[in-house]
Every structure is written in structure tokens, then in C-alpha cells.
């Protein structure tokens, strides 16, 4: 079983990743929306409601299955590494799913988390 994609396959993978995540643009998503431009920013708020929120409760504001992300003491490098490589039995590895720019968006979202106003 191939563990590491060849460079051209990796490029294709990265391209399809960007297209896939372009669907999570800032506009509200509908089930059959056409893909937005490839450089549309990642809607991390929607990403949390789609996937990350399984473990990171309340949009990342509270500890749950996973640790609280709001006000985390972890460095950007730690967070980037964790998103890319995961943690065995705890967090999936998203390194093939997000590019560095998208991970920057996720880190920015985490750094900007504030308590719920509602």
C-alpha cells in the first residue's frame, strides 16, 4: 500500500484539496453549491460545525472530547503540527486535507476565539 504520494500526485491532491475546501467559503453553504474560487478564504467557523466540533466543543471554546482551544497556551507550531499529524487515538491527521494557508486560517480562528456572547 503506497504510504507517500509521488510529487505529481501530491500536487494533484493539493489542488483538489483547495477546490474541496473552497466550498467552505465565507458565504453560507448549501448542500449543492458550486465550488467557489480556489483562493476563497476557509470558513473555519463552518469547518468547526462540520468536523472539528466533534471533539472541540462549542466552537473550540470548551474542553470536551478534545482540549479547549480558546486561550490555548500551545504555540502556532504545536497547533500546526497537531493538525497535520494528529495524535494517535485522539485526533485525526489532516495533513493531506489542509494546506499551510488553510492551517493559518484555522490558527487565526483559534487565536480569535472569545467566550460566547449569547
Amino acid at each position, binding site marked *: 500500500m503506497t504510504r507517500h504520494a509521488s510529487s505529481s500526485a501530491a500536487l494533484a491532491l493539493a489542488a483538489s484539496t483547495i477546490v474541496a475546501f473552497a466550498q467552505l467559503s465565507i458565504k453560507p453553504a448549501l*448542500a449543492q453549491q458550486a465550488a467557489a474560487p480556489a483562493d476563497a478564504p476557509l470558513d473555519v467557523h463552518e469547518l468547526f*460545525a*462540520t468536523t472539528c466540533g466533534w471533539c472541540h466543543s462549542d466552537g473550540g471554546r470548551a474542553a470536551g472530547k478534545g482540549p479547549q482551544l480558546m486561550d490555548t497556551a500551545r504555540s502556532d507550531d504545536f497547533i500546526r503540527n497537531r493538525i497535520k499529524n494528529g495524535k494517535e*487515538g485522539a485526533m485525526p491527521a489532516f495533513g493531506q486535507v489542509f494546506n499551510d494557508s488553510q492551517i493559518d486560517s484555522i490558527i487565526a480562528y483559534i487565536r480569535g476565539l472569545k467566550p460566547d456572547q449569547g
Partner: protein
Amino acid sequence: MLRLPSSLARSAALAIGATLAASQAFAQPVDTARIQAGDANDWLTYHGSYRSYHYSPLEQINTNNVSNLSVAWIHIPGRSTRGLQSTPVVADGVLYYTGSYSRTFALNGATGEVIWSYIPELDEALISRQTHSPYNRGVAIGDGKVYVGTMDGRLIALDMKTGKPAWDTKLVDSAKLTVGFTGAPLYAKGTVIIGAQGGEWPGRGPIFGVDAATGAKKWEFDTVAGTDEAMKTWGNDSWRTGGGGGWMPGTYDADTNTIWWGTANPAPLYDWSGADFKTQGARPGDNLYTSSVIGLDADTGKLKFYHQELPHDTWDFDSAVGEFLMLDRDGQKLVVHPNKSGYIFVYDRNAGLKNVWRITQNSNFVKDIDPKTGELIGRRDFAAGKQSEPLCPHISGGVSWNSGAYNPKTGLYYKLGQEWCMTLTVSKTTPITAPQVQLNIGADFKIAPPPSGEIYGHLDARDPVTGAKKWEVRFPEPPLASVLSTGGDLVFVPDSRGTLHAYNAETGAELWNHADGTGHQGGIVSYAVNGKQYIAVTAGFGGMASDDYAPTFGGVYKSMPRDDGALIVYSLK
């Protein structure tokens, strides 16, 4: 039910049980007839028998002597990432069970000595990208082989005597769909049946029937839109990312040659449709056959009947969980099945609804379910945004995927209920399917206590058909493991702190307990070898529901490992 005097039961057990060597040489092969007939010394299928009672008739360990129960042997399978979630099976004095990563073991049931082990080579890069992984819930046995599913979408058959692989069949494109198999398979009529994960993972949630002799796929049933009729219940092509699945073993009804199975919830878990879910939202329609019980022809996999317990489930309350108790009551043949919500459904053998009762005390996702029609009354459908009232029960359910137990001597169903809720902010989401399928939840949420006060769990002793409660034992944190009942008038409950409890099956009085070293979230069985009765339980915490325990409860959960576990076996001295 005829109650055997203990002396007669013991001598019957001695007569049936031979020495280990002799039983291996002369035992009848494990086949459908033998599983159907059952034997007090064995535990031949995941649910104990095709009747799914999680009950052992053995009486050697009973209310008079259980205080003398002590550890006979322990096995540590290794690499128990996310703990040990499996239920052993036992035939002719040999115990077969799995650990995480589908590590499979055959052990001498009397001594714990490893007869053989099989450690499959898995696509670990894929596994690192999964969430509901790498735990395994157990094996099936039959036709001279042991069957185990893998997280990378395969079903493997191992020779029962040697552990050598007989066949290894790829069923699910897990690299693309991300999900695989965590549930134990079921063996019946020369066929091995196993259901894929699905639910919050977009896909079509297939259930497979595989030829036990050759490993060839015989049939495949898509729980999402698996028939033309069902396709109409998914608006806007939402069936393509429907979820579904059947990730726990059901059972086999020999009278009708039917496989009973429970299906999982649709994706996204939480819809933003509001009340008009038939025409609006992420997946307009009832979303057949998600959150349903289905009956499939054992030979062809064709759908014979179904009941959708939760039409347009928007709460993640699968029907994939738990047991299908096959009861006879007043001349009626019934099937009792718990839904994850905590509502317990009672059917005839064609899934015609007979009754519905509720085990949970805190529940507001519906006001009620009509016990005659199954209609959901006062359902809470969500519009996008923060919900003003917490949703009860919590996403971990009113009941867990583990099993309750039915004792034919007491006529009681021993089942764990869970009291917890969640705050919820529903959002529109887009299913992500490239480069690999990702979770589609549809909300941010957080665990919350119930309106009644603190989170807690409870073991209820109930009439399985009417729900009438005889007694209840409360636990400060919900136990998540399966329950065992025995002919010795005992009920065994492995709790989340790590203590195994034995209760008087009639009264609920606690008679014995023992600390197993870590929390429980798997199975517990009983069997006999050479006339000696054993209780075998898996200990090892760290699954999905248990992830919430350390941040919510603190205490012993803060230091409890999430990557360790052991099989602990008890007997009388």
C-alpha cells in the same frame, strides 16, 4: 421458565464439558444449528445467542457464593488505543477476542494461555486520519473460522485452530470513505454479515453478506437509499452523502431466515430545516433506511421489512446500537430493540410495532413516541442558530451501543440508561468528500447537565415489553459497558470508574465488586471449562463517549489511560 436445581445444572455442565484436549478433538463444529441450540458452557456469538439475551444459564457462580469470586487469569492484548471495546466469544473451552487494531487472540479459557494470535497489517496512515478508530468490538465464529473486521475496510477469516488467515476480503474503499469496520460480524447460514460505519460520515452505509467458506461477497445492502422507495426520501441528491451504516451486529431469526440489523443516523447529524424537514434543509425527507431496524433475507440481502424508529433523525440517535431480544410472551413472538435515544421499541417478528417505552428520565428531542404507531410526537426540529433549550439526551445517547441483558428466569431486562444533555448551535454545513470524506456534524455543541440536576447513569431492571420498572441502581457517571445476567440470579455491571459489580437479579442488592484497574466500555460473558464457570470482562477506557469523562467529571478520569486495557477473567476459588 423451568428453573433447574443447581445440582442438576452443575452435573449437566460437567457432562457436557469435557477436558480441553478432548473437546477440541471431538467437538461438533460451530455452525448455525449449534449457535441456535446454544450450550451453557459456550458463548458462541456476540450477543450470547441469536436471541441476544447476553445471558448465561450457568449457576455455579450464584447469589450464595459470588462474594468468593476472584481473578483466575488476565490477558493484556497490547496497543489498546482507545481502550478495549470487545466482547469475547467462547467455544469448547477456547476464548476468542480482539483488541484495538483488530488484534485477534485465541486463549485457553481455563488458564489464559495464548493458543494463537493474529495481528493484521493495517493501513495505519489511513487509520491516523480516522476518528471512530482503531477500536474493535469483537469476532464471529463458524464454519471452522474466526471472522474480524478492520478499520481499513476488510473482513478477515482466520482458521479457528491455528489463527492462520483463510481469506481477507476488501469490502469498503476506506481510503476514500474514511470509515471501515469496528463492529463484530455475525455468522449465520454459511454467511458472515458485517455493517460499515457511517452516520456522521457521509456515504451510503453498506451492510455486507460474505460467503464464510470463500470470502466472496454475496450481497451488499445500502442503508442509505438502498431501494427505489427509499431513494425518494432523500431530497436534492442528499443520499449521496447520507451517512447511515450498521456498525454493530444484529441477529438471525431462523424461523424466517431473516437477518435483523439496526442502522445508523443520517448526515449531517443536526439539520437546519426547522419543522418542514420533508422539503427543506440538508436532506429533505424521512431519509430511509437510517435510524431504522431492518430485516434482510439471509441468503440474498434483500429487504423484507423495516421500521424507521426515527424518521428524519436530526439528533444522532441511531438504531445501530444494542441488542435484538427475541422473546416469547403470551403466545406472541416479539423483538425488543433499544434506540440510542433511550426509547425501547417492541416489535413482532416482521417489525410490526407493538409497544414503545422510554428508559431515560431526561428527554426532550420529542415529547413522546406513540406506542401503537411509532409516530414521533412533538419533535424538536432545529432552525440554524443557537438553541434556547439544551437537547436531551446528549449526543452520547440515552443508551450506549453496548448491550443490556435479559434473564429468562426473572423475566427482567437489565439495561443501562444515561442522563445528560447538550447545548447546541446548529449551522448549515457542506459535506466534504474530497480528497477524503470528513465528518458532517451540522452544529457546535457542548455537554450539559440534565434539568433534573447532575449527570448520572442507572441500571434498570425492567419488564422488556411493558417497561415496568422493578428496581434501579444509580451511578454518578454513566456506565458504558455491556451487562451480563446469569442463571445464578446475578447481574454483572462493569462501570466507568473501573469497578465490576454483581447484583442480585431479583432485588438489585449489590453482592460483590472488584476493581479492574481502569474503566470499562466493552463486553462481559460467562462460560465453563471442565465444569468450572468463568466470568470474562474487558477493561480499558477511551472511546467516543468516554472522551468526555475527564473534562466533565475529573476525579479518577483525569489519570485514566486512554490507550490501555486487559481481559480479566474471574472464577470461584
